[in-house]
């Protein structure tokens, strides 16, 4: 009896665990592997139509975590790629990355497929691109918002501070309460660069003005938290701010909700966001990621890809201020003054404070 009880308990505790089964499953996986290898010859999807040069080439686009529908940074990249696709007849393959670990395999897959150009959007891709670019010396790579050195990599940086100063100047002219706000996404040097120049612009236009600033967070999730963005905007409006500039990726959607609710104004970022809440968006600080993507694809198609760093500022319209039907009435009275400021920045008469220069080690990475 006691023996039996022990046995049944043993069986219950041990449960299954017969030793033969695991090897069988492993063997099955090996079979699957072999089958898959034979399948490869039968027809490799996606790679048959890829060409190496001229129109009809396939170009890989690796997007940042915000995703292509963020109506801001990534959307701009996709728009530029699509424009190029239409004009030059190239095929664009894009991939969204759910996390940092996915950048590298995505780039590698594109390069392995023999795509002539792989574009990475966002500074988070600099480290993986450094590795992959070194392993595929014949493939061209382009990174936006970061710098990667290499004989086959071109880097695109934007002078965000110039555009931020300009929209800050506009905010300073327009504000009635003398108080304006700034909602940043993740607290990093690049967003500090936006803020520093924006503040300078506001003060230049309206020396008595006050600038409130908040950041959504210190982690990558800060780019995708609209409810926190709205909360911060509402709190700034509560303190009297009547214009809020956001540089917060998808979290900025909350800022637009807040200004609509409280009947004040917002300033958009990266893409032209004037149409998100027509009449309530004063302007958008354009960061022409679309132009950069378009240009690099064009250079590839025309066979004049050039490695090295590139920088876009107000001068070459790499950063700019958006004016369209949605905000024309709002900004028209100030356009003359703003054009003057723009000219002075370009000519160097106004030196816009650059956060990167105050922090020699920051940025670029």
């Amino acid at each position, binding site marked *: 009896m006691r023996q039996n009880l022990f046995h049944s308990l043993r069986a219950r505790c041990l449960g299954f665990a017969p030793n033969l089964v*695991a090897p069988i499953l492993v063997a099955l996986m090996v079979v699957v592997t072999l089958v898959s290898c034979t399948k490869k010859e039968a027809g490799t999807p996606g790679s048959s139509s890829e060409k190496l040069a001229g129109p009809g080439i396939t170009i890989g686009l690796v997007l940042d975590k915000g995703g292509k529908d963020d109506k801001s940074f990534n959307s701009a990249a996709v728009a530029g790629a699509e424009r190029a696709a239409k004009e030059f007849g190239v095929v664009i393959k894009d*991939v969204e990355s759910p996390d940092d670990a996915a950048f590298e395999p995505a780039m590698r897959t*594109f390069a392995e497929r023999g795509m002539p150009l792989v574009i990475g959007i966002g500074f988070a891709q600099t480290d993986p691109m450094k590795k992959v670019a070194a392993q595929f010396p014949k493939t061209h790579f382009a990174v936006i918002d970061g710098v990667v050195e290499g004989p086959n990599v071109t880097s695109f940086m934007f002078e965000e501070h110039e555009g931020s100063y300009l929209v800050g100047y506009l905010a300073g002219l327009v504000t009635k309460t003398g108080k304006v706000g700034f909602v940043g996404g993740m607290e990093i040097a690049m967003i500090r660069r936006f803020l520093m120049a924006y503040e300078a612009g506001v003060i230049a236009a309206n020396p008595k003005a006050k600038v409130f600033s908040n950041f959504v967070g210190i982690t990558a999730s800060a780019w995708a938290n609209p409810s926190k963005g709205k909360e911060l905007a509402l709190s700034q409006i509560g303190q009297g701010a009547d214009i809020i500039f956001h540089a917060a990726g998808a979290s900025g959607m909350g800022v637009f909700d807040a200004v609509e609710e409280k009947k004040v104004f917002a300033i958009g970022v990266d893409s032209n966001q004037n149409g998100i809440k027509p009449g309530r968006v004063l302007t958008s600080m354009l960061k022409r990621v679309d132009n950069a993507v378009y240009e690099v694809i064009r250079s590839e198609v025309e066979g004049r890809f050039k490695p090295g760093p590139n920088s876009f500022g107000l001068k070459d319209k790499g950063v700019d201020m958006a004016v369209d039907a949605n905000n024309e009435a709002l900004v028209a009275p100030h356009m003359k003054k703003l054009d003057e400021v723009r000219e002075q920045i370009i000519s160097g008469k106004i030196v816009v404070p650059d956060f990167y220069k105050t922090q020699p080690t920051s940025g670029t990475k």
Partner: protein
Amino acid sequence: MNFVTKNISWFVTLGAVLLGFSAALLLAAVLGESPSLVATVLIRGAVGSATSLGYSLYYATPLIFTGLAVSWALKAGLFNIGAEGQMTLGGVAMAAVGILASGLPAAVAWPLALFAGFGAGASAGWIVAWFKVRRGVHEVLGSILMNFVSYGIAGLFILNIFRNPSSQNPETLPIGPGFELSQLSLIGGTSPLNVAFVFALVFAAVADFVIRRTRLGMNLRWSGGAPEFARRSGLSIDRETMRALAISGGLAGLAGASVVLGYMHKAREGFSAGAGFIGIAVALLGRGNPWGVIVAALLFGGLQKGSLDLDIDTDKISRDLAGVIQALIVMAVAARPVIEAGLRTWLERRKREAT
């Protein structure tokens, strides 16, 4: 016939996996994408080249650890869903020793880092156990809440104490070169596959041995399988609970090794990328058996890699299909006992009729 009856649970599990895959492929067909193309892309993406295989194994590595961790607790009848937080803490601890003692040679650095990772995960598991034993907080509640505490502590270390000031990414300073795990380029091509994968296999073998052949393992199984019997035989269930959850947490704490020591060479916020939660599915699919956990982790790792190519090679479906497949497999596995009972009755009846 006897072989089939004896291993019926494994066959039903395998059936559940196939069912999950078929359902997902059917879904792809409904969405207008050819199922054979989807299957080809998945398999080719997972094992089509040395580098792809390497990535699959690389993704499987943390899953083996977290799957083992969850299995270990399951043996004692405990459900540890805090593996994600324990993994995060473990990875941060590894990075911390790697930064503070950056000059150490690999021979000392590797064991030290693994010890730190195990220790950090184990402390998180122990805290959950302490609350369960002393305060009666259920371990499911305790461990899931502990996840948030772990994220907070990890954030403090990554973003404040060890933050790399010259990077825009939320990450720590790099670890010392002695702490970097060697790459397994022979198997994994140019993928980030590293020695941590071998560690994972070794830990699985050791865990299997300990569970089946040692007193520690026997106590563990008895406290979970027959607590009343174990108690009357003089075992302290409380002590077994503490020990089981601490070891479970420690195993989860090691999961970060492959990412932190083997690939990034620093801890970045969010490096765990959900491996702790997928570990629960791995443990369920592997039926709490370390060898089963390895197979399940390889399957899920391959799925993770294979699905990356879905974005590129198909027009209508994205990598999220991998999540759908995982969910369907887990659901099919959850239904296993019902199917198994029915199948067993049927088999026995046939056997009786035959004789």
